[in-house]
């Protein structure tokens, strides 16, 4: 019981730290950029956040399991590409029916790619960084080969309603993201699979000896990650009305940053979904703020890189390979 309370209290500290950081970043940008606190800015943030958020969740689950998935952005591209291809080839006249089918295709292909990656991590016993790096190079090459580096655009009008529409004042991409967060929260905190994922991350050997099929868990870890990437790919397709391989490539750094900012342990096993969601919002605030200030895109890249190292330095004393 006491352990439980202590456990909750560290989680609360994480969460409050993230909320404090969010408030701080909003305040800073409210002071240094005059028109930051406008509904328009928050509206555009609400439309941008979901893609980044889904990719971050896709990065988060493998990190909890002690790995990393460098292929998230290109998995999203490939899934979007597949959905766009099927919709344009077979469903151009079907109107609204194209939407659920595209969603299904994106998520299924993402799940498939992820499970293949997971199977390689699990059964080949290769390092996840290497496997996902190989997968990333392969998927990018595949996408470039299929599209010759060009855009595929021109989706049916119904995609517009998902990409830019709102429901009860909430942007639809945001709704999709919140549902995904809820599902991930549920899986990670309340299911056997979620518990196994945490255990695999903190001590794979002990997990194996306590009778959990580590390989099966790993396949699901990367499968979930792939499915979330696929969902992100679907949202990108709906929002931009086009797919290009390499789109969202720069998100990779921010997803990693968000995971470690929110207290995920780089050696696996620790990290919670709620601080992640709050930390993510603060990163989106910073990104939008820098954008509004007219900071160059390259300067922003450098800032993210420096920020990642800074976060790791501050986090390092509290994390060790146990």
């Amino acid at each position, binding site marked *: 019981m006491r352990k439980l309370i202590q456990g909750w209290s560290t989680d609360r500290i994480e969460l409050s730290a993230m909320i404090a950081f969010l408030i701080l970043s909003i305040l800073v940008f409210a002071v240094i950029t005059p028109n930051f606190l406008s509904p328009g800015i928050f509206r555009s943030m609400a439309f941008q956040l979901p893609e980044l958020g889904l990719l971050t969740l896709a990065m988060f689950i493998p990190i909890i399991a002690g790995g990393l998935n460098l292929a998230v952005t290109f998995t999203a591209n490939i899934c979007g590409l597949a959905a766009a291809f099927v919709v344009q080839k077979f469903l151009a006249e079907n109107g609204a029916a194209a939407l659920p089918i595209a969603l299904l295709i994106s998520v299924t292909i993402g799940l498939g790619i992820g499970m293949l990656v997971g199977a390689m991590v699990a059964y080949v016993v*290769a390092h996840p960084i290497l496997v996902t*790096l190989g997968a990333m*190079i392969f998927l990018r*090459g595949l996408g470039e080969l299929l599209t010759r580096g060009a855009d595929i655009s021109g989706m049916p009008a119904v995609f517009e309603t998902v990409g830019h529409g709102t429901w009860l004042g909430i942007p639809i991409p945001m709704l999709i993201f919140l549902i995904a967060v809820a599902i991930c929260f549920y899986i990670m905190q309340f299911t056997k699979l979620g518990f196994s994922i945490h255990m695999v991350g903190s001590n794979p050997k002990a997990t194996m000896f306590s009778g959990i099929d580590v390989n099966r868990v790993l396949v699901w870890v990367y499968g979930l990650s792939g499915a979330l990437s696929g969902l992100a790919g679907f949202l990108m397709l709906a929002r931009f009305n086009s797919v290009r391989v390499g789109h969202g490539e720069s998100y990779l750094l921010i997803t990693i940053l968000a995971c470690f900012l929110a207290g995920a342990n780089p050696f696996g096993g620790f990290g919670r979904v709620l601080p992640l969601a709050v930390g993510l919002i603060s990163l989106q605030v910073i990104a939008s703020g820098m954008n509004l200030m007219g900071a160059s895109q390259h300067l922003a890249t450098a800032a993210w890189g420096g920020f990642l190292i800074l976060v*790791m330095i501050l986090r390092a004393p509290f994390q060790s390979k146990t």
Partner: protein
Amino acid sequence: MRRAFSSAEGILGLLIVVLAVFLTISTDSFASVQNLFDLLNNQSVNIIFAVGLVVVLVAGGIDISFSVAASVVQYIVVTLLVSMGGGNWAIGLFLAAATGISLGLINALFIHRFRIVSIIVTIGTFNLFFGLLMYLSRGRSIYTIPDWLYSRVAIFSIELERGSATLYLPVLVMLFMVFATWFLLAKTGFGRQIYGFGSNPDAARRSGINVALIQGFAYGWLGLCAGIAGLMQAHIVREVVPNALYGRELDILAAVVLGGAVLGGGRGTVLGSVLGVMLLALIQNGLNLLGISPFAFKMIVGAIILGAITATNLDRILPQSRKSAKEGQNNA
């Protein structure tokens, strides 16, 4: 004999020979002196990168920032040289080496002093270096480079029926770096310490190995290689384009992994990395000569990495006795 072909180097060598024979038969231009010399000239930069990277991988780390670091070195060194009115090879090489080592030591500092995982540090410095370089240079290329860097230095030349084929300075520098790295890793006690640290950091620490020195050396050596490779690349293309080497790191990493190095440390050889680079180069060269879309190359590289990982760990997947399964687990 059997042993030679069960090692990564042996298999790679065999693959290279098979591929070379296939390309000689199926294309006219592959087995020409011109093509082979071009291959060597063009791959020397990649090989210098690869022998640097293999040291880091053997020491149990990973670095993806080196190719961007090489771009930074190019830019800084050429800007400095132009501002001081030219300079010469000695000053250029010294500056490139010094800048490269400093950038490498920045990585080593974060990894050793702050105990951050190397992949995360180098993802951070990759973006930090690249973002700052693009921002400060405003993405502009330098076309006016010093004369000594501009005019190619020939080290070996053969007269052919049509013109002549020449090997240039980068090939010589590459041979020197390959030899130096091989000597350090395979022939010195310090090299054994790097292998030892890579295979079991805790045991190495407890047996009194200077961990800071090893980490500093590994990333510093890669920085040195990156600096020199950067200068050589500027010498070959005769200009400095800030984003020219962006993305190169993944090809090099693929090549080194192909050559038998593993993430997690303790395994990998200089010969393997050189052969890995050459195999990828042959594949690319072959695809060009056969007229296959260059877009397919990246996909094939990815497939090769995945295939190579699977092949090196094949003994773990196939049905096996309990004992060897356990050994497989321990190596992972």
